[in-house]
C-alpha cells in the first residue's frame, strides 16, 4: 500500500518547521558513515543535496547524464533568486513571500511547504555568498535586488543574466569539494533507467554508463531524485536539449504518484519560433519586464517598423488591462494576454506570432539619470539614449547579445520580438512534507517534484525552491527515515530485485534497437510536441484534450513499430538515449492530457477555455478542485486519481487580482 499522506506537522503554521527540526530523529555520526544515499541529478537541487548530505557524514553517490555536474540545466537560469531578506526596506517579510507564492500559484499549493520555503529563503543567500557566489552589488558594497512578476517588492537577488550559472557553480564547488575528499562518488555520463524497490522500500537504481553502454546496479539506503522538469514533452521549450522525464517516469511506474501533471508554465518572453529547423527556444529573462514595456500596434497588420509607430497608436495591453501590476503581472497572465492579442490579429513580425518588448522609455530614463550624475542637467535625447544604453548593457548585456546572435537584429536599436514558450513544469512527482514520494525511502526534490508553486510559479522561485530543498530541507527530513535504517546492512546487488530491474532495462533497450523502422526519434518527438502544444498548451478544452489522448496513443503505437535507432547498446549512442526519453514522454503526454481534462476549472498555467470570466480571466472552482491531483500508475493508459485536499488556514482564498 502506498504511503499517501502529506504528513504536515501539527501546530501553528509559523512554528511547524522550527518544531519539526528540533524534534526530528537524528542519526549519529558513526551510523551516518555506513548509510549510503543515492542522489540522481546534479542541478541546484541535486548538487546542493549531495554536497550537504556528504558534509553531514553520509556516504553519497551522485549521478548526472552530462559530462560534468556543472552542466545541469540549472546553469541556464538567468534572472534571479527570491529571498525574504527585506534588504530594500520595502516591507518584505517571510509572510509576504509565502503569501505571494500561494497567490501566484492560484491557491493550489500546500501552505506548510510554502511557508517553510519562505522561512529558509534567506539562509540560501547567506550560504551562497559565503561560497563566493558573486551576486550583484550596489556601490556601497551591499547586495542589489530587482523585481520580478507577481510581487510588489524587490526581493530578487541576481548575478547579471547568469544567476543560475553562478548559483550552480557554487553548489558544484561544494559538491566537488566532497568528491575531492572522497565523500561523494560522482558518476557523470550515467543515466538512471530504473529504481530498485525491495520489500516496498527504495533500495537502489539501475544506471547506464553512457560511454560504454554497460548497465550498473547501485545500492542505497535511500534514493533521492533531483532530475529536473519535463517541459521537453513539448519538443520545443526553453529547457536544455537533454532535460527529460525518464527518471521521474520510471519511479512513477514503480509506485510513486505523479502530482498535477498538467500544470505547465508557458513563459511570456521568449524568442519566437523562426522555422521548422528549430531545436529549442530561448528565454529572454523575466527581469527584462522590469525595464521593458510590452506592446502591439493598435492597427491590425500594421506594416510599419516599430520605431515609426507613434505612441498613441501603440497598445500597451498589459498596462491597459492590469494597471496595478502592469508589465509585472505573473507569467500565466502575461502569456495569455500575448496570445489573446496575436489571436485577435495584432501580432507582429513575419509569423504574426510575436509582440514587442521595448526598452526605449527606460533607456532614456536611465540615460537622463546618468547625465544628471555627470552634471549635465539638460541632456538631449541622443545623449540620454547613449548613456542609457550603457546602463541597460550592464544589466542585461548577455541577454541582448544572445538575442542579437539568434535573430540577427540589434535589440538596442529596435524592440525585441517575443512570444510565450514552454518553460517550466509545476507538476511532478508527488511528495509529502518530508519530500518523500509514496514509495518509502524514495525522495524527490527541485523541479522534478510537484513543488511548492501550485498551478503557476512566480519568477525567481525555482532556484529558491531547488536550493531550499537541497541545502536546507531534505538533509533534515531524510534523517527521519534513515534513523530507522541504521541497522539495515547494504543489500548485495545480486539480490533478485536488482537482477530483475536490470533485465527489464536491458530488454527495453534491445527492443528499441530491434524495431529497425523508418523514422528517427526526433520525428516522433516533434509530432508529440505539436499535439501537446496545440491541445494541451496555453489554452485547453475538452474536445481538444480528448482528441489529443487518442492521437498520442496512436503515435505511441507507431513509435514502437516504426522508430529507427541506429548503432548498438554497448557503445556511446545518443540516439538510443533519446529513444528512451521520447518513449517516456509519449506516456507522460497522455497523463498530462488526462489530468488537464479532469480538472474542469482554470487555474494558473492550466487554462480551460470553458472556464473563464467575462473578461477572459481564469475561473477557478474551489468548491470542487481545491486539491492536488496525484495519479497512480496502474498499467498502460490506466491511472487512478487520488486527491490531497488543500486546506487554507492562514490565507484567505480569493480570486487573483492584478488590476
Amino acid at each position: 500500500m502506498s504511503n499517501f499522506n502529506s504528513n504536515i506537522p501539527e501546530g501553528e503554521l509559523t512554528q511547524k518547521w522550527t518544531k519539526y527540526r528540533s524534534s526530528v530523529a537524528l542519526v549519529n555520526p558513526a551510523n551516518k558513515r555506513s548509510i549510503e544515499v543515492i542522489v540522481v541529478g546534479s542541478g541546484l537541487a541535486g548538487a546542493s543535496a549531495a554536497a550537504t548530505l556528504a558534509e553531514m557524514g553520509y556516504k553519497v553517490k551522485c549521478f548526472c547524464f552530462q559530462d560534468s555536474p556543472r552542466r545541469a540545466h540549472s546553469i541556464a537560469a538567468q534572472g534571479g533568486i527570491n529571498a525574504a531578506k527585506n534588504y530594500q526596506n520595502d516591507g518584505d517579510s517571510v509572510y509576504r513571500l509565502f503569501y505571494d507564492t500561494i497567490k501566484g500559484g492560484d491557491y493550489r499549493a500546500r501552505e506548510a511547504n510554502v511557508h517553510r520555503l519562505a522561512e529558509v529563503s534567506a539562509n540560501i543567500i547567506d550560504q551562497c555568498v559565503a561560497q563566493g557566489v558573486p551576486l550583484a552589488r550596489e556601490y556601497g558594497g551591499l547586495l542589489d535586488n530587482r523585481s520580478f512578476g507577481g510581487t510588489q517588492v524587490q526581493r530578487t537577488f541576481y548575478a547579471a543574466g547568469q544567476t543560475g550559472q553562478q548559483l550552480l557553480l557554487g553548489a558544484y564547488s561544494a559538491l566537488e569539494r566532497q568528491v575531492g575528499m572522497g565523500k561523494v562518488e560522482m558518476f557523470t555520463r550515467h543515466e538512471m533507467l530504473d529504481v530498485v524497490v525491495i520489500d516496498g522500500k527504495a533500495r537502489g537504481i539501475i544506471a547506464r554508463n553512457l560511454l560504454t553502454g554497460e548497465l550498473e546496479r547501485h545500492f542505497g539506503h535511500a534514493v533521492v531524485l533531483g532530475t529536473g522538469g519535463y517541459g521537453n514533452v513539448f519538443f520545443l521549450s526553453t529547457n536544455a536539449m537533454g532535460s527529460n522525464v525518464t527518471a521521474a517516469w520510471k519511479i512513477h511506474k514503480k509506485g510513486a504518484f505523479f502530482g498535477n501533471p498538467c500544470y505547465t508554465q508557458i513563459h511570456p518572453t521568449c524568442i519566437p519560433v523562426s522555422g521548422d529547423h528549430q531545436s529549442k527556444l530561448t528565454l529572454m529573462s523575466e527581469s527584462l519586464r522590469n525595464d521593458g514595456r510590452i506592446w502591439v500596434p493598435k492597427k491590425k497588420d500594421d506594416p510599419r517598423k516599430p520605431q515609426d509607430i507613434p505612441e498613441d497608436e501603440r497598445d500597451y495591453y498589459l498596462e491597459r488591462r492590469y494597471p496595478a501590476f502592469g508589465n509585472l503581472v505573473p507569467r500565466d497572465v502575461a502569456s495569455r494576454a500575448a496570445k489573446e492579442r496575436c489571436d485577435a490579429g495584432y501580432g507582429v513580425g513575419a509569423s504574426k506570432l510575436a509582440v514587442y518588448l521595448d526598452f526605449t522609455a527606460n533607456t532614456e530614463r536611465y540615460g537622463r539619470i546618468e547625465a544628471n550624475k555627470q552634471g549635465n542637467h539638460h541632456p538631449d535625447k541622443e545623449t540620454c539614449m547613449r548613456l542609457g544604453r550603457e546602463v541597460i548593457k550592464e544589466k542585461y548585456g548577455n541577454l541582448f547579445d544572445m538575442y542579437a546572435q539568434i535573430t540577427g537584429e540589434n535589440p538596442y536599436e529596435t524592440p525585441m520580438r517575443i512570444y510565450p514558450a514552454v518553460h517550466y513544469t509545476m507538476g511532478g512527482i508527488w511528495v509529502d512534507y518530508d519530500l518523500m514520494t509514496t514509495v518509502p525511502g524514495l525522495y524527490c526534490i527541485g523541479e522534478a517534484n510537484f513543488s511548492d508553486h501550485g498551478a503557476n510559479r512566480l519568477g525567481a522561485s525555482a532556484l529558491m525552491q531547488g536550493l531550499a530543498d537541497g541545502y536546507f530541507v531534505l538533509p533534515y527530513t531524510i534523517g527521519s527515515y534513515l534513523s530507522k535504517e541504521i541497522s539495515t546492512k547494504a543489500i548485495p546487488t545480486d539480490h533478485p530485485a536488482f537482477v530483475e530491474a536490470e533485465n527489464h532495462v536491458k530488454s527495453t533497450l534491445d527492443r528499441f534497437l530491434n524495431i529497425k523502422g523508418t523514422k528517427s526519434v526526433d520525428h516522433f518527438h516533434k509530432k508529440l510536441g505539436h499535439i501537446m502544444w496545440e491541445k494541451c498548451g496555453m489554452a485547453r478544452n475538452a474536445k481538444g484534450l480528448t482528441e489529443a489522448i487518442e492521437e498520442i496513443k496512436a503515435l505511441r503505437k507507431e513509435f514502437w513499430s516504426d522508430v529507427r535507432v541506429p548503432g548498438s547498446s554497448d557503445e556511446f549512442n545518443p540516439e538510443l538515449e533519446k529513444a528512451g526519453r521520447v518513449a517516456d514522454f509519449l506516456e507522460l503526454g497522455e497523463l498530462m492530457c488526462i489530468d488537464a481534462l479532469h480538472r474542469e476549472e482554470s487555474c494558473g498555467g492550466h487554462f480551460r477555455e470553458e472556464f473563464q470570466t467575462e473578461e477572459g480571466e481564469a475561473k477557478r472552482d474551489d468548491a470542487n478542485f481545491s486539491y492536488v491531483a496525484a495519479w497512480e500508475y496502474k498499467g498502460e493508459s490506466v491511472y487512478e486519481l487520488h486527491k490531497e485536499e488543500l486546506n487554507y488556514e492562514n490565507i484567505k482564498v480569493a480570486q487573483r487580482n492584478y488590476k
Partner: protein
Amino acid sequence: MNLTLKVWRQKNSKSTGNLVDYKVSDISPDMSFLEMFDVLNEQLINKGEEPIVFDHDCREGICGMCSMYINGRPHGPKDLVTTCQLHMRSFKDGDTIVVEPWRAKAFPVIKDLAVDRSAFDRVIAAGGFISVNTGNAQDANNLPIAKSKADAAFEAAACIGCGACVAACKNASAMLFVSAKVSQFSLLPQGQPERYKRVQNMVAQMDSEGFGNCTNTGACEAECPKGISLENIARMNRDYLTAKLFSEEEA
C-alpha cells in the same frame, strides 16, 4: 545554402579517426550550427548510417558542453560565441567547413566530436571552492564587498568550463580556465583564508592531468567565448609565486 562538411569520425577512443565529407543543402541562415548538424544527422539516420556524435545540452551558450573545432578555430569563426550560438548566417553558400574535436592530451576523444573533459572537474575538486559547510554562513550583508571587486570576481566566474582555451593553445595549457577560478576567489574576502593553499593545489592537479605549460601566446583569450581575460593568468601567477616564496603566515 548548400555546404560541404568535412567532419572528424572516430568510432571510439581506441580507434584512429579520419575526416569524412558530407553535403548538406537548403540550410537556412537562421539555423544554429548545431541545428545544421541535426539536419545532417537526420539525413544520415534516414540513409541507415550512424549519426555524428557531438556534445551539447543548453544550446544557449552557458552550459559549456558544445565543443567543435570549426575551420581551425574552437567554436568557429565568430568571437565571443559558443558553437551552439554560432549561426549559419556566418557562412556563405558553397562554403566547405572542416569540423574536428578539441585536441589535447588531457582531453581524449571519446567518439567523433565528443571529448573527455573530466580533468577540469578534478582540478576544481583539488581546490576550486571555499570550505564552508551548509549552515555555517553569516548574514550576507554583514560582509560588504566593493562593487568593483565583486564585478571583477563575476567576470572571472563567467567561465563556462568549455575547454576552448585548451583547444586553442599550441601547448594545450589550461591556465586560463584554472586562473579564472583562482581569481574569482582571490578577489573576494571569502576566498582569502584558503587563497595560497588553493592556488598550489589546483596548479598541482592541473600539471598532473597532462595540460601543457603557458608560453603567453594569448590564443586562449582570443578564442574564449566568454571573454575571460589574460589578467587572470597574471593574477594567478602572482598568487602562486607568493605561495611558493613565503610561508602561509607571511603571505
